[in-house]
């Protein structure tokens, strides 16, 4: 499946940053997006970031419990992908109860097929599970994090 093979995987260790250094959500999002550009998942950084900002402008993507999920469907995305960043200091994504410590940048191609969308849906569902978040807070190794997320969202 796409989610588990390195080639088109939903996430790889190169897309995980457990020490995200950013003070604003624009910075954090840009940093995570650059990881995706480096892995060939996004073909136009600025175009992609504009799409994310457009989505963010509709409604802040920060959620209670220290989660930020900047996301969009964009023509500049080639493969459905998530980048994960963890910030000890937190980055403000507009949630009422404070900054986000777990940040998921979810990138969906504009024309994603339903199999891809199902994987992203499965990921989204995990994000509201306490166990999933706890494991990500405790994780120490990017490769283990990528493995864990891929396993969790395997359809």
């Amino acid at each position, binding site marked *: 499946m796409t989610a588990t093979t390195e080639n088109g995987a939903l996430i790889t260790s190169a897309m995980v940053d457990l020490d995200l250094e950013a003070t604003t959500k624009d910075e954090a999002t840009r940093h995570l997006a650059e990881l995706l550009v480096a892995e060939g998942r996004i073909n136009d950084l600025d175009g992609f970031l504009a799409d994310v900002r457009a989505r963010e402008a509709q*409604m802040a993507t920060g959620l209670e419990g220290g989660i930020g999920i900047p996301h969009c*469907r964009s023509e500049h995305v080639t493969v459905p992908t998530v980048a994960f960043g963890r910030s000890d200091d937190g980055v403000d994504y507009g949630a009422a109860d404070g900054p986000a410590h777990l940040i998921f940048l979810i990138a969906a191609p504009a024309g*994603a097929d339903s199999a891809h*969308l199902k994987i*992203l*849906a499965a990921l989204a*569902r995990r994000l509201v599970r306490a166990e999933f978040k706890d494991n990500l807070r405790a994780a120490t190794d990017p490769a283990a994090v990528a493995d864990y997320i891929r396993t969790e969202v395997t359809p």
Partner: protein
Amino acid sequence: MKFVAVTSCPTGIAHTYMAAESLEQSAAAAGHEIVVETQGAGGAERVDPAVIADADAVIFAADVEVQARERFAGKPTVTSGVKGAINNGPALIAQAEEAATTAPATAIAPAAGGGATVATADGGGPELASKVQAGDSWGTRFRQWLMTGVSYLIPFVAAGGLLIALGFALNTIARGDQGYLVTDQADAFRAGLADSEVLFSATSLADWATLSMVIGQAAFGLIVPVLAGFIAFAMADRPGLAPGFVAGLVAGLVGAGFLGGLIGGLLAGGFVMWLKRVKLPFAFAGVWTVVVIPLLGSLVIGGLMILVLGGPIAALQNGLTSWLESLSGGSIVILGVILGLMMAFDMGGPVNKVAYFFGVASLSTSLETGTDTGLQIMAAVMAAGMVPPLALALAATLRSKLFTPAEQENAKPAWLLGASFITEGAIPFAASDPLRVIPSIMAGSALTGGLVMAFGSTLQAPHGGIFVVPFISNPWLYLVAIVAGMALGAFLVIAAKSTKRAEQQLVQAEVAAGLVPATR
């Protein structure tokens, strides 16, 4: 409890599913069942209609418009954004519990004791049909549909009827012995309005009477459309409204009265129920419900009403009129009985109108020739027309448990409507339970019609009820005749409503099945 939910967000890849997950977890934690429809970027798998029908409440956690929302019409509903569901699922579930338990008047009391509770007309209309379980008998469903129509109808009867009564009352005070002319004044007033002329002087009491009459008659014009519209609504949800209202208006055009409206509403509801079963690609669903169903439903049912009902009703009215003319040479008591039966049969419908206009025509002839027969006929017609609302008001007062809360409320205006010779005051009772109510009030009105003729009372006004007492000869005997018919009608209604309901419902089931083809 059982809930259904729809989640939906702008992008449709994240919040939609997080909200769904959160609601599922929260519902499970609280010991409830929930089915969530995620209207995300990948499209949505539609929740089974049976699940919706079964649900106690609906949760919309959506930041964009919920698609095909009308599927959930009438359910107790809780609304929030997706974030509300993600951040605080348990609170939404708790709200849904509360909405389900406090939802107004959707409880059903099948078979026993007074029948079902009627939905109130406020708050967007909790709608009864969706609460009818799949296993319910046709009789129960049929009754639910009619009751929904009636519950929306009652305010129109009350407002219109009482304004008309007020018009008669003010008019008698203002114009004295020409009191009954207010209906002519109302016609002139409307003709004036059509010519952009308001024939009204604030200092003239007579003009106030006319104004009240005109507004009341306008409200009365809505009775049949509202009844038909909301019967269709109960059957087919919101898409049924337009075809139902149109069917009711067309029933008015062809002079089919409230029975025509009842049938039109049921036909429209049944037809839309059938149209809604057509399976369509998702993209067409919106256009189908908003444009195609109202268009087709109105055209087909409206056309059917005009082409199929129009001719027979005109023929019926002509036949009845010549029959009455032939009878007027014979026994005047029998004529009174027949006029009574006709006045009560459809309460303002085509048969009632034939009897009423026969009375008015006889009155004019007698006033010209100076004979009494026509005055007696008019007296019998008015007394018989006063009986149905009075009899039902009496029955609902004596045995309130046999009537729904909405009907009990309607009893209060019905007293005044009956006293004012506004037979339509009985429609709310008759529309929800025609098979038991109509025969009973026909018997009551027949007795009154016969007695008035036997007593020889005469009346020199064509309308007005208690407000034209000065034009009635032997007023005390006239009153006795009315009270006797009222008592008989009330007694029969109480007896009919107390009999075994199971049998009655079987009969109604057959009627429903016959009237509403192709819905099941």
